[in-house]
């Protein structure tokens, strides 16, 4: 940039200097030419007569005059006339001589000559006689000047020589000037010629280069695979290459001069294009020009419309702008693209179908397997002989392995779901780890391995995570270690490390001192269906999905898993998960906290299942746990039974013909019957997270996956009881869903406390008083539309309801109070409308609680 500017400045300077020189040269030449012309003009005209002649004639005429004087002495008239003539001639000659210019040295002599002659005029003009008598006088006068004509003549010679010399000098000078002028002109001409020839050379070269360039461009245009159409700003086609002919099916000659909109643009978008061109002409800037490519539709000679990719560049040739348009027919590309998208969609659909198929199949397999295993468990009551016991054990082991395989498939399905489906909840990792090791102990014992647990920084810390995933991860890692290392020591090391920010790292490390894994195998152990050891295959079998599941689950939790091992040096799996510690109130005890089944207070339970075997099994298991069980074979029957009897909990199968589990749950909870507050738990083999969300939405408070066993049932019921007592509404319910859960009518803890403190009779009395008070205040509350009054009444009633544990009523009244404070009267009034209904439900809940209590105390 700076160089170009410098170059331009230099060229400008050179040009200016040249112009100045030319001007100066012209001025000099002009001046010279003028003076030469002037001099030539001066030379061209003679300014005087031949001086030599004049002066020599002067002497001649003088001599003739003298001779005429001598002749006149004869006294004849003729001679006297001749004397007069000669005098006149000499006189005239003297006049002429006096006129010869520049002879200043001679002017004195000619002057004297004339004076003498003038003096003689009187004698000459006198009559002949007088002239004759005065001839001597005349002669004397002439004698006084007789030397003058000669002197003048001689002097004039040197003068003439000087004059002619001066003239010659002048001519030489003139010629010199002419030569100089000629030289200047010739130099200028030569310089000009050189310059012109140089320019001509450059011009030639440039034009040849331009021509070559043009040829090359033209060849490129012709050879271009893209159609190239050159269009003027008026839309006229200026050029049309070979590819354009092929694409549009129009010959170049036909296309040239036509309007490209009429010829190449489909009628429906032609107007838009015309507008675009017009806009360009007006503002000088195009919408489609530039380097970027646009997709467009164009039409060929048959009116077939096809997709094109177009790129337009603007060239300002001469003065009018020209669009160079590169057009590529992308019909094939479009088709391929669509095909690929279709293929991808098909693949996705197929994948989803397969996924659904796996889920369905595992469910379908689990249901009968559930039956088989439960039946075997019931048979295994310790009253069998040795051989029978071995068969039973074999059947249980095989069933467990099969169940494990199905669980693996389900786990894979689960692990591939979105991370948004993560069920984060507070969990005590320490307890979880202890529980897992406890459950794995029998397996470890069988293969002669010893399990150890080490903890650092964990204690009873509550961590927000997905316990189910953690459980699965640990079970897979530990069971792998057990399978691979008979007679080994296996250590589960759980550590919790605070990090700089709020998040902390939970590290789960499972190490053994077994045979180890070779470096090359470490690369692939996390892949699906990889089984390293033939022993493993032979002895235990396996899907080879275990570590794949671990990897998926760890990824879902945002962590990483690594394996460190050297042959015969043992193996160490390290899982690092980012976790958040939470405050203890939000936690609930995980299902596996206590591996030893604890005897619960006997409960009154309703179990619903359409499968008769399952029904009987559940009943048997629950009865073994000491509970009272009522059975229902379908949704409708469950609703009927629930209307007439109050239960502590309901176990509800989901997929049932007729009224399904979800519908029945909604009906029971909404019916306002004795079980409106009863926790209902889903019992199903349906394991997909989305379905579990539906359960929660229907108001179910837990989820129990089939197949069932007594331990599982006990844990679930225990959790349910604990949750209800803690005021936590659900078990297995994601914390994120808490806000959606309906507030219970009564606080069970408070109710129990009231019973303990007041006793049944007093409490019955108090409740009646309370009911009377509220029912008395209610009509007024309903009528009130004034903010202040409404706020006061709601406040009063809220205080009373809180005292008697009417949580939902209390919450509603408090919300009304808040709305009044915020000035949102319309929202407050909207809430007031719900009060009678809530009160009625609360009242009936109290009644049923009083009735139950009386029955309990009675029994």
């Amino acid at each position, binding site marked *: 940039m700076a160089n170009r500017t410098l170059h331009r400045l230099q060229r400008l300077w050179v040009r200016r200097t040249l112009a100045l020189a030319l001007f100066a040269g012209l001025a000099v030449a002009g001046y010279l030419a003028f003076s030469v012309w002037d001099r030539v003009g001066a030379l061209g005209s003679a300014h005087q007569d031949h001086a030599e002649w004049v002066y020599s*004639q002067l002497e001649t005429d003088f001599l003739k005059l003298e001779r005429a004087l001598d002749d006149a002495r004869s006294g004849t008239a003729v001679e006297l006339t001749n004397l007069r003539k000669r005098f006149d001639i000499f006189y005239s000659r003297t006049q002429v001589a006096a*006129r010869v210019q520049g002879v200043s040295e001679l002017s004195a002599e000619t002057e004297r000559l004339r004076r003498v002659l*003038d003096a003689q005029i009187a004698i000459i003009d006198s009559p002949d006689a007088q002239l004759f008598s005065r001839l001597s006088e005349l002669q004397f006068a002439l004698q006084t000047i007789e030397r003058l004509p000669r002197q003048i003549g001689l002097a004039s010679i040197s003068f003439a020589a000087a004059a002619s010399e001066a003239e010659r000098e002048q001519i030489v000078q003139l010629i010199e000037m002419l030569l100089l002028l000629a030289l200047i002109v010739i130099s200028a001409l030569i310089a000009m010629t050189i310059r012109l020839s140089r320019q001509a050379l450059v011009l030639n070269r440039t034009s040849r280069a331009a021509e070559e360039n043009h040829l090359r461009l033209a060849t490129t245009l012709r050879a271009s695979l893209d159609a190239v159409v050159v269009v003027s700003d008026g839309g006229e086609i200026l050029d049309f290459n070979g590819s354009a002919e092929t694409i549009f099916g129009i010959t170049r000659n036909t296309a040239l001069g036509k309007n490209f909109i009429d010829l190449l643009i489909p009628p429906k978008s032609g107007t838009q294009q015309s507008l675009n061109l017009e806009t360009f002409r007006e503002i000088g800037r195009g919408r489609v020009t530039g380097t970027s490519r646009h997709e467009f539709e164009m039409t060929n000679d048959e009116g077939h419309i096809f997709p094109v990719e177009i790129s337009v560049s603007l060239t300002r040739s001469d003065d009018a702008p020209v669009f160079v348009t590169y057009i590529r027919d992308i019909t094939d590309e479009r088709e391929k693209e669509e095909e690929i998208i279709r293929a991808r969609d098909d693949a996705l659909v197929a994948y989803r179908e397969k996924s659904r198929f796996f889920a369905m199949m595992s469910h379908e397999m689990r249901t009968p397997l559930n039956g088989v295993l439960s039946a075997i468990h019931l048979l295994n009551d310790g009253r069998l002989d040795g051989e029978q016991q071995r068969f039973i054990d074999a059947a249980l082991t095989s069933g467990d392995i099969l169940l494990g395989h199905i669980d693996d498939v389900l786990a894979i399905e689960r692990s591939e779901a979105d991370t948004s489906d993560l069920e984060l909840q507070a969990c005590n990792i320490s307890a979880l780890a202890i529980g897992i090791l406890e459950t794995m102990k029998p397996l470890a014992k069988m293969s002669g391995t010893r399990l150890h647990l080490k903890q650092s920084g964990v204690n009873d810390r509550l961590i927000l995570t997905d316990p189910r995933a953690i459980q699965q991860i640990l079970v897979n890692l530990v069971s792998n270690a057990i399978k691979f290392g008979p007679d080994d020591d296996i250590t589960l090391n759980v550590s919790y490390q605070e990090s700089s920010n709020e998040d902390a790292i939970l590290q789960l490390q499972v190490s053994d001192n077994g045979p180890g894994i070779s470096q090359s195998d470490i690369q692939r152990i996390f892949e699906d269906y990889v089984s390293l050891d033939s022993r493993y295959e032979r002895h235990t079998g396996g899907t080879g999905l275990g570590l794949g599941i671990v990897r998926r689950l760890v990824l879902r939790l945002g962590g990483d898993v690594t394996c460190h091992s050297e042959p015969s040096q043992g193996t160490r799996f390290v899982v690092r998960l980012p976790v958040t510690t939470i405050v203890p109130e939000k936690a609930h005890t995980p299902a596996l906290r206590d591996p030893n089944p604890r005897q619960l207070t006997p409960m009154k339970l309703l179990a619903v299942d359409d499968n008769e075997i399952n029904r009987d099994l559940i009943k048997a298991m629950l009865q073994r746990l000491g509970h009272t069980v009522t059975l229902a074979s379908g949704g409708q029957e469950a609703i009927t039974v629930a209307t007439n009897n109050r239960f502590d909990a309901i176990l509800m199968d989901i997929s049932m013909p007729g009224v399904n589990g979800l519908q029945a749950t909604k009906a029971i909870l909404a019916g306002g019957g004795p079980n409106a507050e009863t926790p209902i738990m889903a019992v199903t083999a349906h394991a997909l997270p989305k379905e579990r969300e539906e359960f929660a939405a229907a108001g179910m408070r837990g989820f129990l996956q089939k197949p069932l066993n007594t331990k599982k049932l006990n844990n679930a019921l225990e959790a349910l009881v604990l949750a209800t007592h803690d005021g936590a509404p659900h078990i297995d319910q994601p914390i994120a869903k808490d806000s959606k859960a309906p507030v219970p009518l009564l606080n069970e803890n408070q109710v129990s406390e009231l019973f303990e403190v007041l006793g049944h009779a007093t409490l019955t009395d108090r409740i009646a008083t309370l009911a009377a008070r509220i029912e008395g205040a209610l009509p007024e509350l309903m009528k009130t539309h004034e903010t202040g009054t409404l706020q006061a009444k709601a406040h009063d009633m809220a205080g009373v309801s809180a005292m008697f544990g009417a949580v939902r009523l209390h919450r509603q009244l408090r919300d009304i109070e808040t709305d009044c404070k915020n000035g949102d009267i319309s929202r407050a009034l909207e809430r007031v409308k719900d009060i009678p209904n809530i009160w009625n439900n609360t009242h009936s809940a109290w009644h049923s609680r009083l009735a139950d209590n009386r029955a309990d105390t009675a029994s």
Partner: protein
Amino acid sequence: MKFQTISNTIYALVGGMAIATAANAGEILLDVSIGDQKHKYTLEDLQALPSTDFVTSTIWTEGPQVFEGVLLKELLDKLDVTEGEIEATAINDYSVTLPVSDATADGPIVAYLANGSLMSRRGKGPLWIVYPYDSNPMYKTETIYSRSIWQLDRIAVK
């Protein structure tokens, strides 16, 4: 300079006095011979011919002069001379040859009046072939000056 002007005036006066002697009536001023033919012209004869005048400066005089006389062409036309040369001779026998082609309509005249006065023999008269020197640069050459013959008294057509 002043002195020169005064002396010029004196010459003019003297010249004027000489007129009576220089141009006596009936005196033959010009002989024209065409072969054997002889034509003689007095001042009156010449004045009878159509006259032409012009103003010009000359190298023999000071300042612009008014000359009046007969066009040489007029004179020769009258004599049916249209080509060839003429030999003009002065009183002192100075003689020069002119081509007839010199005699054009705006060419030389045979002047008999200078500034309205007849020219005396003493004042380069009585006849003088004068070219209009100022009107044509071609007339400002030595050749033309040599042809401007004063004290003309004979013309011979060859």
